[in-house]
């Protein structure tokens, strides 16, 4: 009985985790869960705007041409609360972004993880911005 009860509550919590995403955002219409992307590019513009900040990067393709991609990130308030400031991502920084592409096929994506070339996870579990050391960041040794 007790296990059943606890399992039920965990189930409720899982439902709630989905609600987190839709709290200030119609993700499902804006981005396409079946179009994961991984982009390597140089930061050319940052826009720290609530409820979502945007990071623009130049992505150099194999043929030598460049594509401009815009990456949606978290609310500046939340980022600042986790220790991320205006100076944490200088223009010219090369980053690797994983996320999901815009549903309309445009060169926009929501950024799930942003990684520096040395492998530091910038947005997840990074020790560099005061996040808890939970073992997920390889640099947390």
């Amino acid at each position, binding site marked *: 009985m007790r296990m059943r009860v606890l399992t039920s509550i965990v189930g409720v919590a899982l439902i709630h985790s989905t609600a987190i995403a839709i709290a200030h955002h119609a*993700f499902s*219409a804006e981005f396409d869960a*079946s179009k994961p992307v991984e982009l390597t590019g140089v930061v050319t513009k940052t826009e720290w705007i609530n*409820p979502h900040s945007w990071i623009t990067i130049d992505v150099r393709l194999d043929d030598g041409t460049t594509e401009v991609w815009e990456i949606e990130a978290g609310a500046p308030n*939340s*980022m600042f609360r*986790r220790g991320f400031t205006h100076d944490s991502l200088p223009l010219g920084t090369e980053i690797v972004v994983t996320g999901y592409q815009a*549903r309309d096929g445009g060169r926009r994506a*929501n950024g799930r993880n942003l990684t520096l070339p040395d492998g530091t996870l910038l947005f997840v579990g990074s020790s560099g911005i005061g996040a808890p050391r939970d073992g997920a960041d390889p640099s947390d040794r």
Partner: protein
Amino acid sequence: MRNLLAAGLSLLLSAALVACGRMDGETTAVDAADDASSPAERVNAPSEQMTPWGHPDLQGVYTFATNTPIERPDALADMASFTPAELEALEASALARRRADVHDPAPGQLGSSYNAFWTENETGQLLARTSLITDPENGKLPPLTVNGQAILDAWLADRADRSYGEPPFAQIAYRSWFDLPAYERCVARPMPRIWQAYNHGAQILQTPDHVVLHYESMHDARIIALDDRPPLHEDVRFWNGSSRGRFEGDTLIIETANYANQWMDGGRSGPPIQFPMDNMKITERLRRVDEYTLSYEVTVEDTTIWTRPWTFEMPWVGDDPNYEFPEHLYEFACHEGNFRAIEDTLRGSYGLR
């Protein structure tokens, strides 16, 4: 201009709090030093925390984040509260789930794509109770009226009509900006504030004749008169409604009606409680229960929707390190139109349909 006004308001509120000597985290030491004869009583007798003009002093910075669902889950129908051991086990599993959300999402799980890293320190705690709802006693919303059921049925049918694909890739399409809630458009955060993804901070400021509830999210400041002025004409409507406040004993009671045409937002509720607020009356009761905690009790009444009023209760926590001082309520300045997001959402919806 809006930014300047918002910044000015924050400064005023902060300055006023300092003037009142009620900066959270410092008050205890100051009060205890001033009242050396009975420091223990000061800490343990919240009813003795009064303003110089004799009102209960509720001022401070709080967070209303909580992990407890508004309705009691069906599986816990006979269980109003958890044991301490159960609560500990549930907190541990919730933490494990959050870490999985951040680091190892399931395919198509867009809930993780927003990177829960940003919000995982604002998830709040589980209460010992199994629901926020305290009345009805079963922890459930009361039965709907015929009209309320018709509104819910129409809402669900409309959602189904705009749904495409199968889980985990099921999507909802939006026909126009009107399908998007006021919160998503950065226009307003509907009352009552139950749960949101982030920025749960709130600040209370008191004067002899007004109380200000300042919310970080949407940067709202509800300025509530405490005198007996008459209610506004029913044709005068506001996003946050029109409020009148009064103190009864140790409790601040705020009654609000005259809501603008918008939909109630159940926040992190299990079932949909999305209903129009035109006829809604909301009564909030704020009361200090210990040095750092307020009880926030809310009664919702709309006899056109529910067969009886219902009440939920949750803590406003005053010792959370994320919300210790007034300056921890950052300016939100939500970009009206949700900068690019609404445009992208509607463009994506055209593709879906």
